[in-house]
């Protein structure tokens, strides 16, 4: 309003300036007088309006100060919500377990296994306690950071699980396109991009333990694009540093890349599915496993396919639901292996192995679910020179049977009991009982499908 007023005043000043030029003086005196009169009238009108506006403004200000005076008497908590509305959302995951194993050791025959892929510790222990901050940065970007506090070798360590920025729709990319940069649980199969606390079992299947060291979360960038089709179709890919398993010891800082394609849809009102194919190609400069005893150097290429199917008999997944999920993975290792414990020395290695798991979850009451899972690895042939080393499966294919039951009080708290029968090498089988709780505090973003 004031700017408008100033502009109008300027017009008046210019007009009156013109009126006083010699040319105007020379003009007909009557004309000048009417012009002056008009200007006078205009001036009066504007003065009147200014006064009115000032009165209005004063009134508004008074009202405002009245309201401000009232505010403290209204509930303080309402104001508190607004006070921190620009802070990032904070979420905490508490995760604890009690485990019992019948075998002292747990080596997976024929494979070098990274630290995260190993069996958890026995007895009472905390799982990964996660701390997550996330928020929209501005109208174009979203940021999220998740730190996991874990116990390793008797000390608590902070592991940066995720720290990434992501474009929001409106960042200027074409519709359907997204870019993500930083460290994140990247798209590779179903489980990898999910935080472990949302899993349906207390541990990850053999495929993810052996091939991804529980989860691939290297530093990198990833692009994805949802096609403008009636049914869901998405393609994407990324480039990564190459430091995280299945890579390792990256020198170039650009040692891995990935690509994927996914499709999915609904069958009627109450069923939906998603199918994907993926590849992750890593140039491993030095991939350590089996507590640094086994080292791989060379090209390690992973291929995966996953399928997930959900069915809610009544359409309402909060009451009853069946979830079926499977992933297949294949790894081609071409380079050299060295098992220091077995004293093999550095030998050429060019072999493929594959593994898979399948699981079914049945929610039969709003708070109760049961589930079963089978996972299996098909070890590679043992090249000459590796007999008796960690890479020698002795013709055994590792496998695990798991069953679980969990109880969910609200969507933020869950208890689970799980039994595993693992037969990972030629020796005895390992019978495992795991009791676990997962609690989620504060903001907790939605889980992807």
């Amino acid at each position, binding site marked *: 309003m004031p700017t408008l007023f100033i502009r109008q005043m300027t017009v008046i000043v210019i007009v009156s300036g013109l009126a006083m030029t010699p040319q105007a003086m020379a003009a007909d005196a009557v004309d000048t007088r009417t012009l002056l009169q008009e200007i006078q009238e205009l001036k009066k009108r504007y003065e009147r309006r200014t006064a009115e506006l000032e009165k209005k403004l004063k009134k508004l200000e008074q009202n405002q100060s009245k309201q401000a005076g009232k505010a403290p008497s209204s509930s303080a908590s309402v104001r508190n919500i607004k006070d921190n509305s620009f802070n990032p959302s904070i979420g905490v995951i508490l995760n604890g377990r009690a485990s019992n194993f019948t075998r002292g050791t747990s080596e997976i025959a024929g494979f070098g296994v990274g630290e995260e892929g190993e069996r958890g510790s026995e007895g009472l222990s905390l799982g990964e306690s996660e701390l997550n901050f996330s928020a929209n940065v501005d109208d174009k970007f979203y940021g999220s950071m998740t730190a996991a506090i874990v116990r390793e070798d008797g000390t608590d360590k902070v592991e940066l699980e995720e720290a990434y920025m992501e474009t929001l729709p409106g960042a200027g990319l074409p*519709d359907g396109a997204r870019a993500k940069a930083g460290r994140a649980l990247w798209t590779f199969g179903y489980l990898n991009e999910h935080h472990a606390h949302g899993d349906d079992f207390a541990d990850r299947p053999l495929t993810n333990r052996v091939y991804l060291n529980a989860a691939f979360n290297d530093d990198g960038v990833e692009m994805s694009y949802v096609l403008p089709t009636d049914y869901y179709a998405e393609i994407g890919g990324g480039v990564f540093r190459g430091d995280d398993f299945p890579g390792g010891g990256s020198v170039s800082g650009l040692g891995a890349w990935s690509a994927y394609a996914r499709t999915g849809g609904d069958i009627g009102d109450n069923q939906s599915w998603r199918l994907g194919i993926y590849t992750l190609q890593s140039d491993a400069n030095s991939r350590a496993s089996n507590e640094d005893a086994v080292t791989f150097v060379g090209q390690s290429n992973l291929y995966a396919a996953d399928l997930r199917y959900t069915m809610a008999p009544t359409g*309402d997944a*909060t009451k009853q639901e069946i979830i079926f999920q499977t992933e297949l993975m294949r790894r081609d290792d071409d380079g050299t292996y060295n098992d220091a414990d077995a004293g093999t020395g550095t030998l050429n290695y060019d072999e493929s192995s594959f593994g898979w798991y399948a699981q079914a979850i049945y929610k039969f009451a709003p708070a109760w679910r049961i589930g079963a899972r089978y996972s299996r690895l098909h070890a590679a042939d043992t090249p000459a020179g590796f007999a008796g080393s960690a890479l020698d499966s002795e013709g055994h294919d590792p496998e695990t049977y798991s069953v679980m039951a969990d109880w969910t009080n609200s969507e933020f708290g869950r208890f689970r009991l799980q039994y595993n029968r693992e037969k990972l090498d030629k020796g005895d089988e390992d019978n495992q009982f795991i009791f676990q709780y997962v609690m989620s505090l504060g903001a907790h973003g939605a889980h992807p499908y």
Partner: protein
Amino acid sequence: MKRSLGFVLAVAWGMALPSPAAAGLQIFSCEPEWAALARDVGGEKVNAFSATHARQDPHHIRARPSLIAKIRRADLVFCSGADLEVGWLPLLMRRGARSGVQPGATGYLMAAEHVPVLEKPTLVDRSLGDVHPGGNPHVHLDPRNLAILSKELSRRLIQLDPPNTVYYRNRLDAFQRDWRTAMDGWKSRVTKLSGLPVIVHHKSFTYLINWIGLKEVATLEVKPGIPPTASHLNNLLLSARSQKVKVILRTPYDPAEASVWLASKLGIAALMLPYTVDKEAPPGALARLFDLTVALLEKAHAEP
């Protein structure tokens, strides 16, 4: 290798072509009532899709792949808002990455932002159950709200599709005229229900209760989103008797056991109101929803 790459490209190209069935404005609604309103106001110029159906609890929906695809191509996202869909809609929005339907855009319409919202909590804590900081989001069961929203929706449709301005204006005029007549009819029927004491399963009927002037005595849920317990129901038995509760209301997606048990103990009716319309409901469905709701309440009231 070259041939397979060519094949992949051909498939991708085929997928990238929009299908001809998708004529008109694409409206993604979170709940069936908003799809129905879009069909009432937008007529044949819109293609309205509902992400949920009447037997689903809109609080808890999986962000399933088909919904990402729908958001990806939507011209307007029409939902209840007030955090009802907070568990799944923001994720779909990020994944679908459609710039025209993001918060603040013309293509983003949240019902609760345009009507007076009831039950805004002054204290928000998870120990209080699944409370919505934005207030009660089930706003569609007050016909006055639908009148307000039809106008806002029409305004958005005109902004998104200016060539059909006249069509949308005429359609809105016709809808508002019919709706006013219908509302007068309902109002005259529900005046005698005013003050009727009811128990509800979840706070799904707050706006209906407020419009008619029913008296909500209690909820079967201990706290919002926390299922009824035996001890809570026993307490309700006493207070319901003393307050002469006439009927227990629930939605099709609420479990029936608690309300049926309590109703049989009290010797009153456990009434399942339709709550919303069919996912694919044709125009006029919202009017029929209120016809049926009012008729069911009248019947329950008439029973001794």
